[in-house]
């Protein structure tokens, strides 16, 4: 399989802050590749380097077979970039935004309408509305349509789901999966770990370092310990009590339960006595399957 992006040893420093440290990864053609990490992890910087907006201090990147520094002019014809702040002209209508971006890339909306139809049809009823008056989800769809209008081979999406409601987020991922049939490689970043399962492969990034690059299932299965899910009426008290328990390795609130790992194989009577002493009588603890969030938190802890 040929590679859409090959990155070797990318470093970038701003002042005395090292934003990216020796980033190595590659993206296969036609896959959805996700970068997952908290705010300030270096995702936006990395995406700006991928989209030829920034030069790395060290290391090199080959994108679509071209060197990202020397071949930037040719590359820019084939990259669709959607920055973190939906880069729309708020005083232009939906239609005008789309037409403008089409003309900038030397094409027309009609020419590539096939590609954006699924996405654009959601917002087409509002095509006369100013972009500034759209909801977050609609802005996101319009920005994606604009980024796609010139039929790019590589789509670079910087946190497209941030600040968008859950329904729109789910819809958005469905649209991306449909785009795969047009042979478009998609690189996407998100701070939401639960979105990782939508990607073909993900890279976990923290403090400018890549911690793990793999299929999301493999990352999830890399969870090294037995994971337990704990529930009780008073969740906060349970959390504190679990934290105080000497054999506890990690405790994280997870939805309406608490995910916890222990150094002993299976927690026994000692734990229930500990909880009773803490005033919790209704605790239910059962073994559970680790999600990708659990693995990510585990990796983050090791990293620190």
């Amino acid at each position, binding site marked *: 399989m040929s590679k859409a992006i090959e990155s070797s040893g990318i470093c970038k420093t701003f002042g005395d802050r090292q934003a990216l440290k020796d980033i190595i990864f590659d993206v296969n053609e036609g896959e959805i590749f996700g970068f997952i990490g908290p705010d300030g992890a270096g995702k936006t910087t990395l995406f*700006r380097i991928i*989209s*030829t*907006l*920034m*030069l790395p201090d060290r290391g090199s990147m080959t994108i679509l077979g071209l060197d990202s520094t020397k071949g*930037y*002019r040719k590359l*820019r*014809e084939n*990259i669709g*970039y*959607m*920055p*973190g*702040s*939906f*880069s*729309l*002209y*708020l*005083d*232009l209508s939906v239609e*005008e935004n789309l*037409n*403008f*971006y*089409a*003309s*900038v*890339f*030397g094409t027309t909306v009609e020419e590539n309408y096939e590609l954006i139809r699924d996405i654009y049809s959601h917002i087409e009823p509002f095509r006369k509305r100013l972009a500034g008056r759209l909801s977050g989800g609609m802005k996101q769809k319009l920005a994606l349509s*604009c*980024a796609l209008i010139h039929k790019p081979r590589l789509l670079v999406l910087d946190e497209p789901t941030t600040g968008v409601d859950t329904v729109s987020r789910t819809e958005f991922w469905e649209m991306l999966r449909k785009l795969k049939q047009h042979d478009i490689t998609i690189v996407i970043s998100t701070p939401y770990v639960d979105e990782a399962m939508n990607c073909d492969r993900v890279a976990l990034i923290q403090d400018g370092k890549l911690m793990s690059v793999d299929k999301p299932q493999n990352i999830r299965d890399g969870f090294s310990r037995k994971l337990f899910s704990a529930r009780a009426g008073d969740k906060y008290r349970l959390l504190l009590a679990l934290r105080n328990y000497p054999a506890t390795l990690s405790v994280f609130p997870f939805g309406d339960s608490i995910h916890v790992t222990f150094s002993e194989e299976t927690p026994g009577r000692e734990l229930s006595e500990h909880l009773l002493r803490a005033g919790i009588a209704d605790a239910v603890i059962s073994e559970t399957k680790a999600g990708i969030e659990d693995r990510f938190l585990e990796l983050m802890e090791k990293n620190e």
Partner: protein
Amino acid sequence: MKRFLGFVRKEFIHIFRDVRTLVIIFGIPAIMIILFGYVVSTDLKDASLAFLDLSKDDVTSELIERTCSSDFFRKTADLSGYHEVDRVLKSGKAKVVIVFGENFGRNLESGKNASLSIIADGSEPNTAALVSTYANAIISGFSQLSMPAGQASIPVIVPEVRMFYNPSLKSQFMFVPGVITMVLTLICALMTSITLTREKEFGTMEVLLVSPLKPVQIILGKVTPYFFLSIVNVVTILVLSRLVFGLPVKGSLILLLAESMLYIFLSLSIGILISAVAKTMQQAIFISLVGMMLPTVLLSGFIFPIENMPKIYDWVSSVLPPRYFIVIIKNIMIKGTGFAHVWKETLILILMTVIMMGLAVRKFSIRLQ
């Protein structure tokens, strides 16, 4: 070319959808013309004047009448003694007091020294100087008339003063070129630097940079609308000043417009340069206003003559484009000179344009810092 036209279209939409931009582009020129034409006028009109007439004869009453019959003065008080002079000046009731000495008329006729003094409120030096000059002129005009021929014992040399190009010394003649310069500087430098930094602030510049557009295309696309709007503005100002102040363009209109276009180019490149340096709209506004507008008003010779400035300001002003442009339009509009008399200034402006354009395109980064 299609890309470029699409870009220009988008830019026009920005301008015509934003009320504030429209006000700046079309409101400010009109406001400035009216403001400088009427309010900031340095001509004398209806200055308040008081008389202290200790003689009260035919000659003094005729003099008083003559003085007041002009548009320049308006009599506000008749005083009865010297003690009142200070009072009317202090209260602001009069800007100037004319005092006729005792037996003024008789002394004048008998060839003796007729005493007359003009007392002006010096707390406003410009007005005081203006008022006393005008009053002086009216009175000396009278004394020549009333003197029967051959009776003058001392031959007096009376120069006949004529103002060429601006016979009635209207101050609008001076301000209109200044206003054109200010408006062009404001619209071209300020507005283009704002619109370019706005793209940076809204993140749309990122996408434009990633697009196959060349920097030159982005820049030209952004400034072309302002170029045309500026020309519209120049024409508007010329028409306004013709209609309102009766100020004609004495020289070639085509030359004037061509020189204006050159200056527009120059200001646009300065605007682009500012936007390359500024990271936010606020910075761009600050640099344009402090770096461009203030010098245009203060140091270009628009209000204060450069000859009267200390040498160092003269040097500073010699690198400021408005200085040369004002000379050019003054020459063409008011004196009616041709290209032969402004080629030096034009050459300087062309040179500055080339340098600024070069710097602006160079500084415009194809990447993010």
